[in-house]
């Protein structure tokens, strides 16, 4: 008894209806405003709405303009040479398309991730053509890896390389090409089941810790919302549409505002002192802190980054960069809080 095609489109649980988990929602919004911040990692217990939030984000984001027919969803304004499809000439008509949120499942083959020889066309027409993989589909959008800590090492290596360069280089089955692959990496997982490699950890701009809410009223609110949604998804989403619009507008306004948000020298100094106090490796900590604070200020509608913004975003942008004594009892969040108290004293 297959349902009709129309009934298949059950609307996803709306982003605005997620109860609690403010840090995770804030991090996702920041990544939506400024993709350059470099990904969001969500670590925490099961059944805390990690997957829900990320899938909801896809539905929330305003559609983007992209070159029609381009498998890499190129920006019509981008230089055509960077993309094998657009470089082949022809008119670049643009159309509106939803921002891609692509699932990268555990155990995905390299072929599927990178792309491979298009078997259908090779067998059917004897043409050597490239069949884009998940990285191509995720271009300009989000690449979501659930249980990212269990991802196989060879895929991690591959992702590190692509995430760093924004370009996917394919050299296989006689194919040789490069295509743009800029995406926001979103990972979720449960640290009980294994640690993430430090190299991959460092690539994430923001790291959130989510825990199951312990107080009963919050739990009841979560279950109520979910129950209401499952009873009648369409009606629930319709009721939430106003809130969704508000968040969407906030993202759009923040994107417009972002280039104008000033980062005063005082804020940069604060960031540097904070990173020094924590002993983070390299300069990625300061850079991310500055970028995320700017995106946060843009979301708030502020003109400049203030101490308040830095204070709010520092735990998420720094806690995964601390040089770890792997068995240090005090959690990294506590260490960031301590340093914050020192620097802002």
């Amino acid at each position: 008894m297959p349902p009709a095609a129309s009934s298949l489109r059950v609307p996803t649980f709306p982003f605005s209806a997620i109860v609690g988990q403010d840090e995770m929602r804030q991090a996702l919004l920041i990544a939506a405003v400024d993709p350059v911040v470099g990904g969001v990692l969500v670590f925490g217990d099961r059944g805390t709405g990690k997957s829900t939030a990320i899938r909801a984000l896809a539905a929330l984001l305003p559609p983007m303009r992209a070159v029609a027919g381009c498998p890499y969803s190129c920006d019509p304004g981008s230089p055509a040479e960077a993309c094998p499809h657009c470089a082949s000439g022809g008119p670049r008509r643009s159309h509106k398309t939803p921002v891609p949120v692509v699932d990268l499942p555990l155990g995905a083959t390299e072929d599927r991730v990178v792309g491979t020889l298009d078997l259908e066309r090779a067998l059917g027409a004897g043409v050597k053509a490239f069949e884009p993989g998940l990285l191509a589909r995720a271009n300009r959008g989000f690449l979501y890896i659930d249980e990212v800590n269990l991802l196989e090492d060879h895929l991690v290596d591959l992702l590190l390389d692509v995430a760093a360069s924004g370009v996917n280089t394919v050299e296989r089955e006689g194919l040789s090409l490069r295509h743009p692959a800029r995406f926001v990496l979103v990972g979720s997982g449960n640290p009980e089941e294994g640690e993430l490699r430090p190299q991959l950890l460092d690539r994430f701009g923001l790291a959130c810790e989510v825990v199951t809410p312990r107080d009963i009223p919050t739990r009841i609110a979560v279950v109520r919302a979910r129950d209401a949604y499952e009873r009648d998804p369409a009606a629930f989403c319709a009721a939430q549409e106003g809130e969704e619009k508000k968040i969407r507008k906030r993202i759009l306004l923040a994107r417009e505002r972002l280039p104008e948000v000033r980062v005063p020298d005082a804020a940069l100094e604060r960031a540097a002192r904070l990173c020094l106090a924590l002993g983070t490796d390299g300069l990625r900590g300061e850079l991310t802190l500055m970028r995320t604070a700017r995106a946060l200020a843009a979301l708030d509608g502020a003109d400049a980054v203030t101490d308040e913004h830095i204070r709010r975003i520092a735990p998420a942008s720094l806690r995964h960069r601390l040089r770890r004594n792997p068995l240090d009892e005090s959690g990294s969040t506590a260490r960031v809080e301590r340093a914050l108290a020192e620097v802002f004293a």
Partner: protein
Amino acid sequence: MNAAPSPWTDARSAARLLAADPHGLRGAVVRAAPGPVRERWLDDLRGALQPGTPWRRLPPAIGDDGLLGGLDLAATLAAGRPVARAGLLAQADGGIVVVPMAERLPAGTASRLAAALDTGTVADRPARFGLILLDEGEADETVAEALADRLAFRIDLSGVGSDAGTDAGSDAGSDVGSGDPEAEPSAAGADTTAAEPDPVGSLCALAEAFGVASLRAPILAARVVRALAADGPVGRDHVTVAARLVLAPRATRLPPREPDSPEAAAPPREDPPADPPPEADVADPAIPDAPDDVVLEAVRAAIPPNLLDQLLSGQQRLAAARAGRVGQAAAARTGRPVGSRRGDPRRERLDLLATLRAAAPWQAVRRAGQTTRPIVVRRDDLRIRILRQRTETTTVFCVDASGSAALERLAEAKGAVELLLAEAYVRRDRVALVAFRGGGAELVLPPTRSLTRAKRGLSGLPGGGGTPLASGIDAAVAVAIGVRRSGSRPAIVLLTDGRANVARSGEGGRARAGAEALQAARAVRAAGLPALVVDTGSRGEEARAVADAMGARYLKLPRAEAGQLSAAVRAAL
């Protein structure tokens, strides 16, 4: 009323609920050995489904194209044009997918199933199915928690059938059969319904009381309540049944008992009876002073007996061990294909896709000569898989935690485990820790590379008592063999002074204990496990004898400190 229905009755209620709404309730984990009881439950479920509902069984080693859909290679080659086929999940839309041997499910497949359950779609086709995970795992093997957490029910049929007497097997079928008729009406409201004003609130309170952390559980329970109430008013017994079915099997703790209900102090824990006995005095619906207590008792009575025993004895290790299964399974695949190369498929595994890929560009040229065959594959095109063995090492520490010096030695061992783990963090190796003391050995830390778990496991490690060396070695060998079976490379590090004085039976006696220890040590050699014996005693040759019997390296480190020890282990293995 809620006189502790038998597990079988609850299992059948779950089957009925599931049949009515497979996707809404997402499915069930069914823990049972293969056999008549399990088959009967599956038959029940199947019988309760609407006729024509899809029912698919997941083959153990299903690939992506089979699961999610893709190119149908055979049809494509025959037709000469691409033929797509729906994957198994899309075929099962609206119905049930049964996963046998779910405890062995590869992590990749589990995550695909989880994503499909969440979204209800697979590759833009509807795939709204319920999932039945058949868990046949031995003691420590369990289903991936990421998947189990999404399913409404956890049904343990392993006690059903064997509860009546001592003999299990043949009794099962008839026992269940006789339990049936009177079980039938009990589930859905045989009782006068006390109205429940706020089912969601009570479910959340219950979940909290029983230490169910995941919010998916009360969400699913709320759905069960709605299904039970069938759009009518929600009664307390609906909440009770839902909590019993959904929340009880997930309990991680017991709520403190009210002191004024002494008659409830003996819930049926050792022997949940097959037929509900007249136990109505446990919770009389006529005098509910605090509305939750009645439900609370009913839920408590429904906690599976083995889980209840664990909860009562304050053991929480089970949950921790469960949480790690996914990680283990992910790391456990031996010989992952990492590519393909030209070669002879009679000796190695053929990589069909790569072969076709290699042949594909030449088809136009080759067909020019002979046109009868739709695809011309030449020997040069044949590709075989390159499998890469995991070189991951799992170091099994087997630590003598006995006697007076134990505390110190234990601290060293803990330190060494932590140091090695810190390296494993970079090298992707794992460690495990077996401790032996007093009457026997205990797996303190199952193989892990998680710092979080290691810290927790190590912090609660006690010391003192006799030296059951044989039991310790036995346990370490069992862990090491399990590690090897899962595709990783085990190594045993035994820290002891070698002076065994407790035999396997738990009785004292130096001579017998020593002989047994040497016997156990020979098993290490027989199994071909690499081992290192660190002699922590200051004198005596007992440990050296054990090392010789094991075929192990021997290292005398009477005053090892953690750094030295981990360096020695690294050098030796």
